[in-house]
């Protein structure tokens, strides 16, 4: 029961935290974006693999909000060919120049603040901390920004009765997590929270209106 209570408290904190401030979307709406260019990610974490790994998670949530998203890997390669292989350089370039290069309406900049796994005696805490900014290609104004921190530590559900056994199970899990921390689910959660939460994420784009979901399975509802 204690766990349930904690869970509820945690959830309500998360909910209120994310809903407390309703963002101002006037500039975003006025910009009338159709396409978003996601440029390589700036890395302030200690993990050198973080930027590329993160890049693989970011297209889906933005495209699913109804925007055309430029192919992230191709964009990265083209920028590298243009001498912009350093993400910091890309982020310091004028937004309008980047948009001109690709014909994009806006640029999404992401900065990875944390991407680490900390060993804490009987548990390993995996943390992902991200700052997102969308800037207008015409004016260079910031249209939207968000900051997400996600923390995960594996919990042992088995209560074997013996505290020692439980402790051992937890320690083993912590070691496994530390050896090969899986950041992707955390990054995906952070992205989902950042982009899709109502009153907090980005407003639906041009492809969002007709919910085009002609599934592979035949439609059961009669279309007449």
């Amino acid at each position, binding site marked *: 029961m204690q766990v*349930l209570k904690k869970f509820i408290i945690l959830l309500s904190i998360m909910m209120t935290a994310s809903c407390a401030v309703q963002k101002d979307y006037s500039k975003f709406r006025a910009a009338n974006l159709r396409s978003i260019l996601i440029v390589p990610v700036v890395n302030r974490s200690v993990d050198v693999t973080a930027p590329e*790994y993160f890049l693989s998670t970011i297209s889906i949530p933005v495209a699913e909000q109804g925007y055309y998203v430029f192919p992230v890997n191709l964009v990265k390669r083209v920028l590298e060919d243009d001498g912009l292989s350093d993400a910091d350089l890309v982020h310091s370039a004028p937004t309008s120049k980047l948009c001109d290069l690709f014909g994009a309406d806006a640029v999404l900049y992401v900065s990875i603040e944390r991407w680490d796994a900390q060993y804490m005696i009987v548990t390993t805490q995996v943390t992902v901390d991200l700052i997102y900014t969308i800037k207008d290609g015409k004016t260079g104004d910031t249209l939207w920004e968000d900051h997400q921190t996600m923390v995960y530590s594996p919990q042992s559900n088995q209560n074997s009765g013996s505290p020692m056994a439980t402790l051992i199970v937890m320690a083993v899990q912590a070691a496994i997590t530390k050896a090969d921390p899986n950041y992707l689910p955390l990054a995906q959660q952070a992205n989902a929270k950042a982009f899709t939460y109502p009153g907090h994420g980005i407003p639906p784009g041009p492809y969002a209106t007709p919910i085009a*979901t*002609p599934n592979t399975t035949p439609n059961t509802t009669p279309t007449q």
Partner: protein
Amino acid sequence: MNKVYIFLIVIITIFLSGCVTKRYAWNNYDDTLYQYYKNPNEAEVFIEKLDAIIKNGEVSGTVPPGIYAEYGYTFYERGQYSDAIIYFQKEYDKWPESRSFMIKMISNAKNQNKIKDQKTSDTIPTQ
């Protein structure tokens, strides 16, 4: 206690409703790209999976944005410029937002093709 459960159910429904349907047939595109960055030597796997995403997406007409271009670039990297152009053109046709970028990529591919042709025609007479 009942209230607590109702509250939980409501929250869970909200969370679930957010991830029921996807607009596009991504087919684990995120994992595909992740694996490619993790094992850059296994480019063939990446190429095969992109091909599968396209074939699968074309059935339902839900090929995600950027995928044709990404796939086209895998040909470009291997020097198969004519194939690259086919997929850059597909991206161009499907997504108006991609056009100015795709025009550049197509012209790059054409230029590279010319250079390639010149090189091969240069080497032929010497043989």
